[in-house]
């Protein structure tokens, strides 16, 4: 589904991703872990198409297409979803209105009919249950004045509505208490399917207790330096990142 090979990316003059390769198949959940500054969020941003990042080498294929050639909105229409670490407040635009516009734009891109108000509301009601989100929150300006937990739940709600093929969760656990974390993780788990893949970017193992990954990758200095099964996350939790760093320095 997603094939990243030898990816290099920089912001300004600073190279952050330095030769990263990763293969993700349908239905898989991959956790990307690593110390601060390793390039985890940069990877998420590059995949979603954030323009501040310049790709200087390598390739990213999504279902055989060159992802790097696509505008962010095309990537979304093709089925990529980024749950933001810091969801943006958008005054004057309600979540409902925002999502309706987004869904219909995506449907237009795919040559599908527009959803009418009734169909849209029905779908919304269905997905609201997944993340236990309140109707009143959705009629307010998007993310404006939302608590940290509400913002993250809103991200997962949007994900449920848009039904992406590849979801990228960028530090979704940051700033969440354990209850909010559980609700968010439950939402993500309910969306797991043999067709849908997920990249979970996180600093801590905590989230992976709830969203159990198929693979864990450790990112360090812009490259994946170690990959393994879910038990690798536990090992990292126990031993920290220093041994990985040491190993990586030796191998360099």
């Amino acid at each position: 589904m997603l094939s990243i090979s030898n990816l290099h990316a920089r912001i300004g003059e600073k190279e952050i991703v330095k030769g990263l390769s990763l293969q993700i198949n349908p239905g898989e959940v991959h956790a990307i872990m690593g110390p601060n500054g390793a390039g985890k969020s940069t990877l998420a941003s590059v995949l979603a198409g954030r323009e501040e990042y310049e790709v200087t080498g390598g390739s990213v294929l999504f279902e055989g297409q060159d992802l790097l050639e696509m505008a962010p909105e095309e990537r979304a229409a093709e089925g990529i979803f980024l749950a933001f670490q810091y969801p943006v407040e958008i005054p004057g635009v309600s979540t409902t209105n925002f999502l309706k516009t987004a869904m219909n734009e995506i449907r237009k891109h795919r040559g599908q009919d527009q959803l009418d108000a009734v169909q849209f509301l029905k779908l919304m009601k269905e997905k609201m249950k997944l993340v236990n989100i309140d109707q009143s929150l959705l009629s307010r300006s998007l993310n404006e004045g939302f608590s940290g937990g509400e913002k993250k739940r809103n991200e997962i709600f949007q994900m449920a509505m848009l039904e992406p093929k590849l979801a990228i969760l960028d530090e979704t656990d940051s700033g969440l208490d354990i209850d909010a974390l559980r609700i968010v993780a439950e939402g993500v788990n309910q969306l797991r399917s043999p067709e849908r893949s997920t990249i979970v970017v996180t600093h801590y193992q905590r989230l992976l207790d709830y969203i159990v990954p198929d693979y864990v990758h450790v990112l360090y200095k812009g490259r994946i330096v170690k990959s393994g099964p879910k038990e690798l996350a536990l090992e990292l939790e126990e031993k920290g990142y220093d041994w990985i760093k040491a190993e990586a320095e030796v191998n360099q």
Partner: protein
Amino acid sequence: MNPSFSSYNQFKDQLLAAFRTNEARMNGESRTPVHQVRRAALKQFDLLGFPTIRHEEWKYSNVSGLFKEAFELDELSPITTDDLATLEIPNLDGNILYFVNGQYHPELSRIISPAGQVQISSLADALKADADFIGSHFARYADYQDNAFTALNTALATDGAVIRIPDNTTVEQPIILRFITDGRQKNIASQPRNLILVGQNAEVTVAESYRTLGDRASFVNVVTEIVLERDARMQYYKVQNETEQSYHIGTTQVNQTDNTHFYSATVTLNGNFVRNNLNIVLNGQHAEAFMYGLYMPNGKQHVDNHTLVDHAMPNSYSSELYKGILDDNGTGVFNGKIYVRPDAQKTNAYQSCKNVVLAPGASMNTKPQLEIFADDVKCSHGTTTGQLNDEALFYMRSRGIPKDEARTLLLYAFSQDVLSQIKIQPIREYLENVVTQKLGK
């Protein structure tokens, strides 16, 4: 001085001569108090002359473009309802008065509210019918000593709307004053003058709308005087959707007394050069004034909003929100004055001006001016001018909304804080449509 100095004098002479022509046509009217005021105003205009950018109040608004055009001053228009079709506001209902080139056209207009609710007439008719009454209000509120354009209007105005609402009356239907300049053949200047008197505990909604037909130059120099007697309530909207060849200079002067409420929205969608003065005197206790504004100059358009709230008595409240979207080489000015007089204890005054600048050539000048002479007051002001939030744009795009749509959605939401204040639904919908179209360009 630039080379237009001779045309400056020419235009001024033309205006002064127009006054003498008007005067010569009058019979008894030249001896009325109103005409004495006109004479004084003309003298003042002659003395002040047109302001230049050296004048503090006109620092960022250069009117010299006016002198490059030669305007007809009293041009009648043979306009018909069919000609107005392109300027229609869909589904608009209420009392609709048409003024074409400044003159009232009863055959195009429709007054549906019963006379017991509101008396609506043209200024020309009111001067004939009750010159003393008009004389007791005309130019009593809008100061012409310091403002050349108000002086000019005071001297030359012959027509406009006179609206009187009796005490304890609610005018159920809105009153819409449509000022149309027929610029299909010639460059046209007009000097409309409105007087709105809202009686005690009365309520009314009035909108002024400005349009120009054709592609010749237009110059509208309007003055509206509004008086709210105690406990009166008014919604007042000024809506401008003019052309790339239009000049608009206007003053709305509001005099509020005890327990009055005044809600206003000034929306400037298009116009080559626009200057709006909104002056409110809170001359009573527990008076409230709300001022909203939206302007979106693009191309080479220039929009200048000057507001003044004069808190003259204790316990009054004013709240102001002006928002601008500036594109291409569009320029904007916001100057917001708040005076709190020594007697005006317990004043609350809030002012905010927010702008989005979309292009490197566009610019905005903001100047809040607070002069506070009382000590027990709450006043705040803030202005922001910035670009569209890139992070918000990316967020929307990452959800599948294309860049242009995302931009339009964000700016539309930005404009809604002001447009949502407009309670005449057909006017609000019309404005929302024009805003959407303009943003989509």
